[in-house]
């Protein structure tokens, strides 16, 4: 699903909730996954200039997981370590979205290239 407007962030959250429920995540883990998805959706929109999200169920080690992949072809992130530093923001945010989202999920992969775009993959496993 595309992320091109503010409303889409709300829609991503709804999608993440449905997925987390289908995956039978605990209430706490559902909230964590939804919140992480919300952060990335907004980054995709604000910094990536819009993009897409793909969600789905994954299976690994006999467990079910909720997967969300956010992709944009925006400016990319020049300094990944800096971007993942708590409190660092290039805009007017709290600078906790990226680093916080990483703590909220079980798998977090950030793939970015300056001038090409950014892809972030999230997985939260059911326990």
């Amino acid at each position, binding site marked *: 699903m595309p992320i091109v407007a*503010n*409303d889409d*962030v*709300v829609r991503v*959250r*709804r999608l993440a*909730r449905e997925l987390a429920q289908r995956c039978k995540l605990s*209430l*706490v883990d*559902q*909230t*964590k996954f*939804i*919140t992480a998805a*919300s*952060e990335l959706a*907004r980054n995709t929109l604000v910094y990536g200039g819009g993009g897409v999200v793909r969600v789905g169920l994954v299976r690994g080690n006999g467990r079910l997981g909720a997967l969300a992949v956010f992709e944009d072809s925006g400016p990319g992130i020049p300094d990944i370590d800096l971007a993942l530093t*708590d*409190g660092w923001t290039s805009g007017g*945010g*709290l600078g*906790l*979205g990226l*680093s*916080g*989202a990483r*703590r*909220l999920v079980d798998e977090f992969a950030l793939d970015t290239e300056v001038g090409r775009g950014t892809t972030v993959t999230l997985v939260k496993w059911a326990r």
Partner: protein
Amino acid sequence: MVAKQDGSARLLKLLSTGEQDLAAQWITQVSAGLAGRISRAELDRELNELFTALVEALRAGGQDAHGEELSELRALLTELSRNRARQGFTPSETALSVFALKHVLEPVLEGGTKDDVLAYLRLSRLLDDLGLFTIETYTRAREEIIAAQADQLLELSTPVVKLWDGVIAVPLVGTLDSARTQVVMEKLLQALVDTGSEQAIIDITGVPAVDTQVAQHLLKTIVAARLMGAECTVSGIRPQIAQTIVALGIEFGDIVTKASLADALQLALKKAGVEMISPAGGRR
């Protein structure tokens, strides 16, 4: 151009043959499909206008649903689709107004000449496109209606209530997007002024998720309230929200939080209560 004119002429002929009045049959069919939920007079007017516009368009040589010649027809269809959307008809019921004309023309397939059949096929393709056009317009109109309702809901669903003299509360319910949080926060600050309150309780029991943006809005509002001399308490932070906020790394600093709205009210009353009993013994 000649071929095009010629093609349209054939389509035109198709519409003007038929022993009975095609338009009348068409209206009857559509009317049956809408099961009396629209007045016959209104339908008569709508469809007669459409029929005339279609004939005019074909006479002008139009054969493309998106072409210049059909602009008048599209304008009429737009109006029709918007009306249907507003009146709560389904997309099928809306497109029926166009597709029914195909049905009415079908008899030409039996006993018609090869040219008639070809003309029918071409006209029916045009009507298919026009039918899709009505569905698209219908959908867009529906979306506008829904967006407008959401705006209204936005206003409605963020009440600021006065709980006590000097104490206001805003119970937040549902998903908080940026626009909504903004509205809530502005309302809260305005209510502080209007009611001259010094205590505000922001209750987030009904909020499914607090992300950095919501937190930032909350924090900013609380700071703004402080500048106005008021104190905010955040209540209703459920366990899953608390854990998420901690994992995100959001710090609420010295902001007072309470488990429930009742607890927050108690605290606010205590603070207000100290003020209420003045040395003079009267209420301030």
